[in-house]
């Protein structure tokens, strides 16, 4: 087992409120697997990924990586950000080198690794540009290259394609799928885009509305590359969509109930 989560619960104490973001989450990720995580908005997907990145600690429960408890960022776990999070004062190649620079690797090695990766993501020739000179798609290519530069075993992606126009995102997904196939690294992608998850995932983890629990884990046994027009693709989409829709209705229902109670309170106060 590459990454294991057992009974992970996350409670945010923000007095006077406490928000339970995740409740008793348990699942495993296999080595070399592409796991996508979907769930209603605000259910705690980013929180989950942040904890695997070691940026945040569970309130209870445990996360293990290669069998060892994970409590801080690990040198073999890397991340791609929705906001790209490129450092604007660094050029493209300097951004890709960032992780290696932190590790204190020699300059020649850093440049070699970074140039290879820039080649792979189609950014050769742009290495001396600053992030502000890049399009969204190019920025995320740099983000991906930066994540891969430290030669991670696990790549975490939080909505990595959400801030990019659909046309470019499609191309980028194909590239990531290709990188996954060649490198056999483990990928975890959080997304709210269901077709995206079905296109990329070996398995899809469906979370419930907040507090998030594991609603279902769906294996996607389709040949790659996958076309969203395939009948099987459409069937899987329908199934997961109805799961999510039920969740959405649940949470909407709870939300409405809450509103109703608020409304009653207000009315009672006015009556008095």
């Amino acid at each position, binding site marked *: 087992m590459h990454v294991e989560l057992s009974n992970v619960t996350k409670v945010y104490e923000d007095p006077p409120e406490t928000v339970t973001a995740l409740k008793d989450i348990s699942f495993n990720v296999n080595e070399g697997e592409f796991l996508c995580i979907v769930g209603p908005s605000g259910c705690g997907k980013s929180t989950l990924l942040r904890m695997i*990145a*070691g940026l945040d600690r569970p309130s209870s429960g445990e996360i293990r990586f290669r069998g060892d408890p994970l409590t801080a960022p690990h*040198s073999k776990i890397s991340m791609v950000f929705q906001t790209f999070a490129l450092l*604007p*004062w660094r050029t493209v190649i300097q951004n890709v080198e960032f*992780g290696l620079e932190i590790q204190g690797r020699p300059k020649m090695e850093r440049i070699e690794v970074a140039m290879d990766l820039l080649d792979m993501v189609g950014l050769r020739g742009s290495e001396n540009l*600053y992030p502000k000179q890049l399009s969204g798609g190019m920025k995320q290519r740099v983000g991906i290259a930066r994540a891969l530069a*430290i030669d991670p075993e696990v790549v975490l992606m939080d909505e990595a394609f959400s801030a990019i126009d659909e046309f470019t995102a499609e191309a980028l997904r194909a590239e990531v799928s290709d990188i996954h196939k060649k490198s056999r690294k483990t990928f975890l992608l959080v997304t709210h885009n269901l077709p995206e998850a079905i296109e990329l995932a070996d398995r899809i983890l469906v979370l419930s509305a907040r507090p998030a629990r594991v609603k279902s884990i769906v294996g996607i046994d389709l040949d790659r590359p996958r076309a969203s027009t395939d009948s099987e693709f459409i069937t899987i989409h329908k199934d997961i969509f109805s799961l999510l829709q039920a969740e959405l209705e649940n949470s909407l229902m709870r939300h409405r109930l809450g509103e109703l109670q608020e409304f009653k309170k207000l009315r009672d106060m006015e009556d008095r």
Partner: protein
Amino acid sequence: MPFRLFGPRAFHRVHDKTRRRFRPPAWLLSLIAIFAFWESISASGLIATDQLPPLHEVLLTLVQLAVTPFFISHVAQSLANVTTGVSLALVLVLPLALLVGMRSQLDQALTPIIMLVGALPDLAILTFLVTIIGRGNVAAVAISAFSAFFPIYFTIRQGVKEIPADYFHVASVFRAGRAQTFTKMILPSIFPNLMTGLRLSFEFSWNVLLAVEIIASVAGIGTFISTNLGSSTHSLTYGLAAIMTVGIITITMDRAFFERLENRTKRWH
């Protein structure tokens, strides 16, 4: 090819000519106009020369002063004091402003107090400070540091608060330690704010220092100005020339140093 009088080539020639002609900047024209106005007023005798000396005399004195060791040492003293003061403020404020920018509880505890101190009348406090510490260079440095404190504090605090959370995540995910997070992430992030803060605080504490030099007669260019203003026509010319020198120093520092540094950051912003 047919001969064309008004073809594109002809156009280019005309265009190039207009480009090559010297165009003085607009501010230079206004400056010349103001100087001419000044000169003509003192020439006409509308205002007596012991109240407004002719401009050419002031400018002449300025040039003379610029090579007078006594004057130069006063200017150098003030500049050294203000530079030491601002540097001292920076060393003291930087860690504090960074902490406050990152820890909102500390911010809530400290910033209101600092605002309160900042709201007190500077010149009164500073004059009071002189009566305690005395009139030496120590007082001048303390005064510069005190006035530089607030602009640096608030600009750096703001800069740290504006660092996107994901930059901190990047630093953590790639396992930067405290020192590396500071040098490779926080410092470059706040660099533009740091420049603005230094620029503002230099200007501010330079002005305050001169004022305090004049009010409390701490040695420096301020005292040079105040002892020369008012007594006779001759020394009024000296005073005005010294005031102009201060203006020229301020602008030069601003343009030659701070603006350049700020422009460097424009490459990536």
